[in-house]
């Protein structure tokens, strides 16, 4: 089976999981709320709107062109975004017919269902690459650093570490706020593409107005798709951030999360995970952002505007996508396009 056939087979497996009428799709809906902590509504959203089940031919071509052939690829998955297993395994299958997956201990369900639906890869409790193999690893910077120290020489490591998304808006429009709220909800903001800050090119007053719009939209979204279970560390970080931003800026509550205005402007302070956002005003040139660009995985902008070019200029390695689609990234390769740590 060639790479194209392998990936097509994997995408067909993903389609089964997205289908609520398929037995595997039903099983996914029954088991994933527990393993991910996400609400049932958020699981449904991820399976039906975010899981990449309809890649175009050109996207798949790009995915395959970007892959480097390898005899055996080992994949270390993270638990933050459950559907990310699909993209990670697709990238591995583009490189090799032999793929071994080490699933996250916290979220092993989705890879298991994908394996049952596709039969394309195997599982391992621990990664045991041999010389010449590749390891594709997704996780925290600490996990990746630890992994790097344990791999034998001549194993290629492609490591995808921490990062976050940023929204860039030119004015305090309600439409942009609505689209941004749509990007904040999936995976309760745990994805490396999830927006954690919004930059408003304008005054503090504009930024305040936008923060109010986003909080109103997010409150609505939170009612429609409830926030799931957060870890104790995530809840603690939110509690501290609420007090900090009450003092340092202005806090707008959305029911279960918050939007904060950072009036100091022109700095990037990512909000804690859990559908929270820091809104910051900036002058239009965005020069200050270049120093933090390496941390930004995705920038969401109103497409067709001059902001698109500005975003590409200040963060050349980030994906620039339309607002409202920051979590709906084409299946054209790894989501994170920042320079990958490749170690041998």
């Amino acid at each position, binding site marked *: 089976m060639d790479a194209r056939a392998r990936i097509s087979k994997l995408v067909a497996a993903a389609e089964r999981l997205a289908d609520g009428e398929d037995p595997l799709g039903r099983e996914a809906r029954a088991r994933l709320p527990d393993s991910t902590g996400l609400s049932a509504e958020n699981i449904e959203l991820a399976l039906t709107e975010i899981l990449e089940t309809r890649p175009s031919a050109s996207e798949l071509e790009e995915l395959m062109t970007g892959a480097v052939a390898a005899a055996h690829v080992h994949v270390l998955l993270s638990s933050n975004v459950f559907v990310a297993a699909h993209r990670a395994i697709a990238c591995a299958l583009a490189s090799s017919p032999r793929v071994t997956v080490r699933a996250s201990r916290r979220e092993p369900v989705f890879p298991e269902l994908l394996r049952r639906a596709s039969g394309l890869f195997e599982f391992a409790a621990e990664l045991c690459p041999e010389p010449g193999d590749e390891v594709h690893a997704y996780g925290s910077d600490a996990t990746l650093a630890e992994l790097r120290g344990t791999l034998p020489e001549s194993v290629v490591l492609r490591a995808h570490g921490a990062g976050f998304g940023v929204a860039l808006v030119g004015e305090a429009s309600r439409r942009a706020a609505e689209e941004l709220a749509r990007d904040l909800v999936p995976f309760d903001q745990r994805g490396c593409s999830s927006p954690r800050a919004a930059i408003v090119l304008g005054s503090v007053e504009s930024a305040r107005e936008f923060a109010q719009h986003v909080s109103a939209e997010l409150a609505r979204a939170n009612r429609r798709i409830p926030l799931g279970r957060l870890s104790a*560390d995530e809840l*603690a970080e939110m*509690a501290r951030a609420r007090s*900090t931003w009450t*003092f*340092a800026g202005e806090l707008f509550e959305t029911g279960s999360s918050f939007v904060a205005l950072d009036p*100091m402007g022109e700095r990037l302070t990512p909000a804690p995970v859990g559908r929270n956002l820091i809104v910051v005003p900036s002058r239009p040139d965005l020069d200050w952002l270049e120093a933090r660009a390496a941390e930004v995985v995705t920038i969401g902008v109103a497409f067709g505007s001059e902001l698109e070019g500005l975003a590409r200029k200040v963060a050349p390695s980030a994906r620039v996508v339309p607002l409202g689609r920051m979590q709906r990234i084409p299946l054209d390769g790894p989501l994170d396009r920042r320079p990958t740590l490749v170690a041998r």
Partner: protein
Amino acid sequence: MSWLEESDELHRRVRSFVAGEGQDDFDGLALDIARYQARWSPGFGRLYAERDAFRCAGDVPALPVDAFRLTRVAVHPPEADVARFATSGTTGSERGIHAFRTLETYSAIALRWAERALLAPPGAPRVVLALAPRPESPPESSLGFMLQLFHRHFDGRERATWLIEDGALKLDALERELDSARQSGERVLLCATSFALVLLLDELQGRRLPLPPASVVMQTGGFKGRVREVEPNQLGSEVAKTFTIPKSAIVGEYGMTELTSQLYEGTLPGAALATPPGIYVPPPWLSVTAVDPVALEPLPEGVEGLARFVDLGNVDSAVAILTMDRVRATGSGVELLGRAPGALPRGCSLAVEALLGG
């Protein structure tokens, strides 16, 4: 009353409290400081929105230390600053600033509690040596300023001895100072960060540097995940062996840039504070509570939580502070249990480490 008059009056009342004089009780003074802060600072006005319902110091919402990195935490305007103590920075993080409009209260507080923890018998003359760099002028490090105070008040010699220069330990100078102190029979108070002590031990490679009898080592700061870590007990044993002093003469100090007050271990025989090793004693003008990291509510004694401080010394900054340090309250003080997950490394050891190129 203007903010300045109000601030002056509160500082006066705090210094009286520290001196054991005046009519104030801890809770009343803490609430008056909180109300002053809310009256003159919009940030505190928002944070203390429920201030009319505060009944005790524990009701005052604690400001997380992150705020010191993100914004100015001061009731007074920048032009009134007489000192700005900065937290040690880490790559990619901004440094937190604690601004002071007077250092009179800071000095009274630092000296009063250090006397009780580090001097036995009280008031006896000693040579103060700082295994630290000479502070900038004006000082940017609260530790540097405190060590200057110790030299000025506990030593009495004109010239202070700073034993780190241009990023290197001045081992020769330390040896000369100790020789001289041994000959004159003067006891020594050697103040050092944990990091500097490890460096010294590494440089000495097992060689001993005996301190005169009745000398004390004040050890502050941890390793914060940045350098070769030495288990505290092992470090204590090695320091005691190197300086030929009992382990009880190594007194741990806990302070942070965002606080005005310090805590000490009460291990020194004959000193006013007496606790087992590892228990840090807050002064009467500082309360420490372990709080639940999510609810931010106080936890029962013996249960681990984040350290929440109410520091009467923080008249013009934040009277209640929430840190990322994990603590457990005991009957006589608090046990320090390290940093919470996700916390940025910080501490005086980092500042020394940065200077030494670590």
